[in-house]
Each structure stands twice: as structure tokens, then as C-alpha cells.
């Protein structure tokens, strides 16, 4: 296959097509809808042998995807933001069913206030659901990660569903050259679904997901899900190795860019990390030994690989495109817990909140974060988490508030006028 310009959404759809998915329950939401539209078009034209059913909600969609896997077919679903949250109950449930499938999440900020652009709070909310998570930085990664996610999910040692995350707008609607994997090679990499014991038939009664009363059986099933997720680290390495062998593209659980000899390292997830790559190059030219470490896997959390990648660095800037209110960035806390007590862990691990709701991160800001790290190392004191937000931006917000306030005042004045007239 030649390289083509594809949006992240169409790249995701190609991953689904190459995985020869049998069943796609669907519910629309921006910025994910193009994935489903693309698949629907292929089904219409007879280019894809797949059944698509439009559902009444994401809650039903996730249920249907898991239930279909229980009958032994390969299934797929895609959602975003509010939709992921609406289906949240069933994320936990189908993970507990141990029904392996792939769910694409196109990351978008959460309400309120409602927005459409990229932000990771949606996928972070699914952190503890039992779904594994692969985060993509390019449209090429989206198609490749989708195929890898099926291999990982369906592996007998794992048997857990996987979320493939791509950023709304920055990947979903952004076209980039993508090398679409050859279908024959894709089939070699990902053989047809072997459902094993997943073969529910109407005529062959089976109770999936029975109730357990009492903490003992509950603890067993929940902990087994955890052990499967932990075991998925080693399985992911095998899958990535196999993918590199067949397609020549290597996707380690943790991507390391010029970090081996770096003094200061950015740690972040998703597509904004390519901005950090540029910043690293610029900083290197300016004589600063900077690097980038990007976990592709977020669940399971690649603790050992991160420890290795960050061992001996002077300072780390974790950039979270999410915010846990009352605490700070989620990745920052996760990374600190992975590094605590490790002998050669970096002495400074500072948290930055950037890119909320698709807010850009400028090259100067990457430079400034390094300055903060340098200062922290010199002082021996790590500053509290900082929001990347400029004085100019605050002036902009003040202007918006002033307009909103003026309008509100006008309405109140009119209402008061109406009342006075009514009374006279």
C-alpha cells in the first residue's frame, strides 16, 4: 500500500477494516463520528463485511459491543468525551466480562463548560475501568495501534478490552500521510478472532457476569482483571516486536526521544508530544540537553520502562492535558508513584497543566518549563503544579466576561423596565 493522506478518524476506520471486524454498534458524537461514517460507507459499498447497528446511547453501544464478543465475534466501538462518560458504567462491566474488543476514544474536553476540542479528562476517567489504554501521537500510530490493540486484547493471557486514544481535532480531523498496512500482512499479524470459551448461543444457556455476594469471590474476580492488565505489559512487548518485524514500525510501550543523555525530560501523552519533539530539537540546538519520554501504554502503566528512561535525569516536566480538581495532573501523580523510593530517580519532577480544551502549548513555554526545572534543581525545591496560561489569555477571558456582564445588565434593566410599566 502506498502512503495516503488520512485523518486520524479515517486511520482508525482503516484499523477496524484491516482487523476485519464483524460487528460495530454505533452512536454519534463529535469528533468521533467520521470513524463510523467511514466504516458505514465501506459496508454500503460492499468493501467491508461487517454488521453496523445504530444504538440509542453509548451505554447500549458498549453493552452491545461486549455482548457481541461474548457470542464469539470481533467487535468495535468508538466514542468521545461525554459519550465515554455516558457509557462509563458499561466500561467497567464489559471489562469484568473479560470480553476483548477495541474502543476508540477521540479525546475531547468534558462539560461544563462544554467544548469540542482535545483534552484527556475523558479517557482519564476510564483509567480504573479495567480497559487497557494505548495513546497515539500520529495518524500512523492510530491505524497501527488499532491492529495491535486487537492482538493485545484477544491474547488468551490478557482477554481484556482496550481503548485506543487519539486527540480530537489535532488527530481526528487532521490529515497526515499514513502507510496503510497491507491487508494480507495485517491478517498475518492479526489472525481471525479465536473466541475460546466466548461462544454464547441462544440455544446454549450461559450466564455471563453473574452476581457474587461477599467480598471473597468479588476480590478474586477484580484482582484477576488487575493481574491480566499487569500481564499485558509483557504481551504488549511481544505484540510490538511482531508488528515491527512485519511492518518495520516499532512502538515501544514508552517512546524515548533524545532522552538517553538528557538532563531535562518532558513526559506527556498523545499528539501534543510531537510539539515537545520540536522543542527538544530546538533546545538541543541552544545547548540544553532536553529529551522527551512518552508512554504509549497508560494502562497497564509501564512503570519499569519509565524508571529506566528517567533514571539519572536531573529534572522532569510532566505535562498533563487533564486536571484532577483538588490535586493536579493525573499523569504527574502516576509518575511520582512509579518513581518514589527508586535510587536514581530524578530529584525534581514538576507538574504542568497544559493543553486543556485544545489550548496550544507554544515553543517558548517548553523553554520556560526547562527554566523552571533548572531553577528547581538549583533551589532543591520543586514548585507546585502550574497551569500554562498567559496574562494575554486572562485579558481575553476578562473581555469575554465583560461582554457577558454587559448583556446581563442590559437584560436586567429591561426586566426592571417591564415591571415598572406593569405596575403603573
Amino acid at each position, binding site marked *: 500500500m502506498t502512503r495516503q493522506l488520512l485523518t486520524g478518524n479515517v486511520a482508525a476506520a482503516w484499523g477496524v477494516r484491516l482487523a476485519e471486524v464483524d460487528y460495530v454498534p454505533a452512536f454519534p458524537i463529535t469528533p468521533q463520528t467520521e470513524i463510523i461514517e467511514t466504516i458505514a460507507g465501506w459496508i454500503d459499498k460492499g468493501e467491508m463485511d461487517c454488521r453496523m447497528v445504530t444504538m440509542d446511547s453509548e451505554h447500549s453501544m458498549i453493552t452491545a459491543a461486549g455482548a457481541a464478543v461474548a457470542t464469539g465475534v470481533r467487535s468495535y466501538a468508538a466514542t468521545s468525551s461525554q459519550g465515554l462518560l455516558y457509557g462509563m458504567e458499561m466500561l467497567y462491566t464489559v471489562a*469484568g*466480562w*473479560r470480553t*476483548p474488543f477495541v474502543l476508540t476514544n477521540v479525546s475531547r474536553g468534558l462539560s461544563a463548560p462544554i467544548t469540542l476540542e482535545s483534552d484527556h479528562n475523558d479517557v482519564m476517567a476510564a483509567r480504573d475501568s479495567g480497559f487497557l489504554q494505548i495513546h497515539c501521537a500520529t495518524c500512523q500510530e492510530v491505524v497501527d495501534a488499532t491492529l495491535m490493540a486487537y492482538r493485545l486484547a484477544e491474547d*488468551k*493471557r*490478557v*482477554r*481484556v478490552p482496550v481503548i485506543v486514544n487519539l486527540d480530537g481535532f489535532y488527530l481526528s480531523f487532521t490529515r497526515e500521510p499514513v502507510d496503510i498496512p497491507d491487508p494480507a500482512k495485517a491478517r498475518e499479524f492479526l489472525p481471525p478472532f479465536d473466541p*475460546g*470459551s*466466548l461462544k454464547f448461543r441462544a440455544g*446454549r*444457556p*450461559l*450466564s*455471563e*457476569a*453473574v*452476581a*457474587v*455476594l461477599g467480598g471473597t*469471590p468479588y476480590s*478474586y*474476580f477484580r*484482582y*484477576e*482483571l488487575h*493481574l*491480566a492488565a499487569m*500481564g499485558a505489559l509483557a504481551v504488549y512487548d511481544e505484540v510490538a516486536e511482531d508488528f515491527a518485524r512485519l511492518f518495520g514500525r516499532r512502538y515501544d510501550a514508552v517512546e524515548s526521544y533524545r532522552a538517553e543523555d538528557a538532563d531535562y525530560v518532558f513526559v506527556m501523552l498523545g499528539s501534543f508530544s510531537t510539539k515537545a519533539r520540536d522543542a527538544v530539537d530546538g533546545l538541543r540546538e541552544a545547548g540544553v540537553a532536553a529529551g522527551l519520554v512518552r508512554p504509549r501504554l497508560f494502562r497497564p502503566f509501564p512503570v519499569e520502562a519509565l524508571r529506566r528512561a528517567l533514571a539519572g535525569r536531573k529534572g522532569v516536566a510532566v505535562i498533563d492535558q487533564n486536571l484532577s480538581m483538588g490535586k493536579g495532573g493525573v499523569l504527574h501523580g502516576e509518575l511520582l508513584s512509579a518513581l518514589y523510593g527508586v535510587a536514581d530517580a530524578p530529584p525534581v519532577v514538576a507538574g504542568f497543566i497544559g493543553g486543556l480544551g485544545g489550548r496550544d502549548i507554544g515553543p517558548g513555554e517548553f523553554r520556560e518549563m526547562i527554566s523552571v526545572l533548572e531553577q528547581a534543581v538549583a533551589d532543591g525545591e520543586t514548585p507546585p503544579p502550574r497551569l500554562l496560561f498567559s496574562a494575554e489569555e486572562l485579558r481575553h477571558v476578562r473581555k469575554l466576561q465583560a461582554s457577558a456582564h454587559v448583556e446581563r445588565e442590559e437584560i436586567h434593566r429591561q426586566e426592571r423596565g417591564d415591571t415598572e410599566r406593569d405596575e403603573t
Partner: protein
Amino acid sequence: MFRIRFHGRGGQGMKTASHILGSAFFHEGFEVQDAPRYGAERRGAPIFAYVRAARGAINERGIIRHPDLVIVADESLVPVPAAEVLANFAPHTTLLINSAESAETWRERLNLSSPIICLPLAEAGEQAELPYMGVACAAAAARLTGVIGRESLGDTVAEELGSLGEEVVAENLRRALAAFDAMADHEGCVAEGEERLAAPAEGPDWIEMPLDLGEQATPAIHAGATSVEVRTGLWRVMRPVVHEDHCNKCVWICGSLCPDSVISTGAGGYPEVDYDHCKGCMICVAACPRHAIEAVPEHGAAGETAATHEEASP
């Protein structure tokens, strides 16, 4: 600290009993903790409730490991394993059981050395005394502790049940005081247990959980028709008994109205009830045109029909 456990069935007022006893202790100046514990909520299923009462702060929580007093409101629960009526009995644990049989009979039956007190709660001519079991059990328990006065108990009953109206309060009060008075000879026989139980000698037997493959570690049942293994008949408080001398043999009526499909045509064309799975809803009793099906309280019914609880328990 007093540690007291009530056993009964859903609908017999065990939660109310724990509230009444808890509040009565509270009125007497105790620190109190009371709570019910049950699985899926349904009438007739075994539930228990517990009360802790102490002069100081209570830090224990959840299941009572060494009860001072165990009250069994429904003797048909004793052979039901899921009810765990005899769980964690200590030598000092007193058993108070709602039964017309003697303490000696129960001592032999259960092979227990603990003190046993029998209190028949059914009044003369009563088939079932469900609505009053809880209040009577709470009142009897109050007397056994010796620290709750008659007046204080009365106030508590009025307070806990006040929202149900004067008539209900009056009848409950009568039942409560009758049970309280019936326990006069045993007043104060239940003493407070030790404040701090000795730490267990052995540590926990922790293991590293092995990784099982997903097909094993999923909460699925891979075969049909396993529900027959669940003896839902154990939830029954009342039992439908067919009197063949009145029966028309119109089994299509009781048989088709039975929501659990446990009535079939048996020997001689009479309806036959599968008591292992009859939950005792009594729809058949109401529907029978000849009034040939009688509702009999479960603990007195063993002799009336072939199937018994003892046989039914797994």
C-alpha cells in the same frame, strides 16, 4: 460491650428489631451501633441484623465475631446453611429462639453447651405472627440484658413505629411488653462481653494471587439449568398444603397461576407442589376455587407434607 445478633427472614422485622433495641440502649445512655445485613432484598430470604452497645465509643464494625446474644426469630432458619445462625458461637453466647419446643430439645438438637432460652411468640390460634416478630424479639432481648427498663422500651417502640399510626403502635407495644414480661426470670442473664477480645494467635494466611486465564477468571456459569440447584423453597415462610378431600383436580388453575411453575399434576391427578422451589407466595391459595389449598406456617408444617426443610437444605 453488648454484641447482639438477630436472625430472621426478610419481612419478619429484624431490621426494625435492631433499631428498637439499639434505640432502647441509646435511651439508657449507651453508645450504640445497629445495622442490618442482607443480600438481594427479598421476602423470606435469611437476613441478620446486629446491635452493639457500650458505655464508651464503639470502634468495631460489621459482622459480630463473638456475640453475647443471638436471637433467632424463625426456627426454620436453623438448618439453612446460608443463614449462619450458629456462626461464631462462643461458650458464653446465649441463644434466644422463637419456638414452642423446650430448651432441652434445642440443646440436644444443636449439641450446644451455651445457654438456650425458648420464647414462643405465636399467640393462641395464630397461624403467623410476622408483623410482630421483630418488636417481640427486641423486647425480649432488652430484658435479657438487664439494663433496659420497661418504660424506656415502651418509649422506644412508640418512637420507632410512631409513623405507622396509633393502632399499630398500640398492638406492637402490647406484644413488646408481653415478650419483655415473659423474660422476667432471665433478666440480666446476658452480660457484656469482654471489651477487647484477645488478638488472634495466628496471622492471616495471605497468598500471592495466581494469574488465571480469562476464560477461568470471568464470572460466568457455563451450563444451563443450574438454577434448580438453588433451593428457593428455603425462602418460604408459609407453605401451601393441598387437601385432596376438597380438591377438584383443576390443576390448570393453580398450576398455571404459579409464578414459579412449581405445581404439576401428581399422583391421582392432584396438584403436586415442588417444595424445594416453592417460595410461598400463596397465589395458589388465593386462586383455588374450592379453597382446597391451605397456607400453613412453615415451622409447623414439617409433619403436614412429605418434603421438609431438613431434606431441602443442601
